């Protein structure tokens, strides 16, 4: 993370504010306080504008169906849990639970698999790097750049032939391959932060590999592993195309369940919003938890 993490970088502009007092006298257009108030208000307005669809989704999910679909919108309508009860199948009989459980299974197990494959690989690419390790890194990256559609037909045909269609285990393998390159890139950048001096010291003290891993590398890498896991979880949870093609009735995931609402009409607006809220909640939690690392994961570890 070094100097580039938001928390650390915050100190840089602050340091500059001391001499700014001297400057401010002569050049009023450089006045940082006035600038910042205006910037703050603008940023807040834009932040609210961007968050409006999300906030509206949450509000609508707590409205009754008749209050949800009105023009002009009924912002102050009574709040109710009806849409959630309806969504969880008390009235409609179609339960979202199997799809939520499928999503959780696929996301969690593929994340575990990804970590099991990525951590040793990252170790071989940073702590004791293999020859031409940069080439290997770019191979991993290039697989991520290949669109899923370019491989999906053979995967579908293969699954159909061996009877793995609508099977959660096949989807888990697919999600593992989808997230593995990102995980390797992220983990490598985290492991590269283990100070060389500490590794040397451990070696001089005669620590074996297991001990070095446990006492030196793990403490530094743990937050990175957690962030990598959260990001892999998010990607798997969000995925639609593979799930839609490779699963169906039994192994359908939450996003596939959501596609059942694509042609819904206004009668179900509150229910659609409740469904969207419930299915987005795990990602919202994971995403806010991994905020700082999110961009690092998405940019394949290139930006810290």
């Amino acid at each position, binding site marked *: 993370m070094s100097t*580039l993490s938001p928390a650390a970088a915050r100190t840089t502009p602050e340091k500059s504010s001391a001499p700014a007092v001297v400057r401010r006298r002569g050049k009023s257009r450089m006045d940082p306080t006035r600038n910042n108030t205006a910037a703050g208000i603008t940023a807040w307005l834009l932040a609210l504008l961007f968050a409006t669809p999300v906030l509206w989704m949450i509000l609508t999910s707590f409205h009754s169906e008749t209050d949800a679909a009105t*023009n002009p919108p009924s912002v102050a309508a009574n709040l109710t849990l009806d849409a959630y009860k309806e969504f969880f199948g008390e009235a409609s009989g179609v339960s979202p639970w199997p799809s939520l459980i499928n999503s959780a299974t696929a996301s969690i197990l593929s994340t575990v698999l990804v970590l099991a494959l990525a951590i040793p690989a990252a170790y071989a690419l940073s702590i004791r790097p293999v020859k031409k390790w940069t080439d290997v890194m770019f191979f991993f990256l290039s697989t991520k750049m290949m669109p899923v559609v370019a491989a999906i037909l053979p995967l579908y045909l293969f699954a159909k032939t061996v009877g793995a269609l609508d099977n959660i285990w096949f989807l888990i393998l697919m999600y593992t391959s989808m997230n593995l390159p990102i995980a390797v890139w992220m983990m490598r950048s985290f492991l590269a932060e283990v100070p060389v001096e500490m590794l040397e010291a451990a070696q001089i003290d005669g620590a074996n590999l297991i001990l070095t891993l446990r006492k030196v590398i793990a403490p530094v890498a743990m937050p990175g592993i957690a962030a990598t896991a959260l990001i892999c979880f998010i990607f798997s949870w969000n995925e639609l195309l593979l799930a839609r093609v490779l699963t169906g009735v039994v192994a359908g995931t939450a996003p596939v369940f959501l596609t059942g609402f694509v042609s819904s009409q206004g009668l179900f607006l509150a229910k659609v919003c409740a469904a969207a809220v419930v299915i987005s909640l795990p990602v919202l939690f994971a995403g806010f938890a991994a905020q700082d690392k999110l961009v690092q994961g998405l940019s394949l570890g290139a930006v810290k």
Partner: protein
Amino acid sequence: MTTATARISRPGHATAKPSRNKASRERALAWARRAPLLPALIFLIIVTQLPFVVTLIISFLNWNSLSPGTTGFAGFENYVTVLTDPDLRQAIFTTILLTVAVVLASLVIGLGLALLLDKKFIGRGLARTLLIAPFLVVPVAAALIWKHALLNPTYGLINGVLTWTWSLFGSDTPPQLDLLSQAPLMAVIISLVWQWTPFMMLILLAGLQSRPMDTVEAAQMDGATPWAIFRHLTLPHLRQYLELGGLLGAIYIVQNFDAVFTLTSGGLGTANLPYAIYQTFYYANEYGLASAAGVVVVIGTILVATFALRTVFSLFKKEAAR
């Protein structure tokens, strides 16, 4: 690359002591180094590279699963069809338009937001969190919300706000939009820009916060205007972050399926290549044709990715040299 490798090399590199079986020991050591890497590498080759090779082969076949009798070698026929069929050609065009529009718009808005968030103000952390929210809604859910809760012509929030605003001024004939049927591609673009702007903002914010402040301070001392500082110091520094954001965004958005599927189901000229391919093999069972279209997407992505790799590589080199 060699210097970078040497720099990053950890102790243990020199642990191979000279001995009689020096060569074989070194080989064993090299394999010991490689071993942790191999499971990931082999797994990825089998699951991603092998299927693509199969796609490549199928793309030269005449293969519709509904008429098995006609299966055979087709040569470049499928590729000719992909490039001449009006629907598929439209899909290529839509993919390019969609990608370019979404990437550029979200980059520009993301840059603006990053510049604002780089300043200190009350509640900055919360504002940042609010701004990230669009990126954290499950893409299908986000598309559903845009389709039903925001853009719906009769009860969507956008028309609702128009009605409400007009009624404030005593008018009962507010303008009402119907983007989904009148400008469906625009609807897809808007929802994607909304979802991708936070990503661009986060990358550019990371770039801004890694900016060396001493040169900015020196420029301020010399009386440079904020615009001059932005133009000559900030923008050049952000360049590689802009490129990275743009190229990664392009790679993700070229592949977009969720928004097109949910908002318009590919209707009215909004089918991009991923959606068209999905339809071609999933509903029309034209395996050969779908594979050829898939190969075309890969060629397009390789063109973009070549630049992307270069950008990522320049950042990566910096990091390796640190």
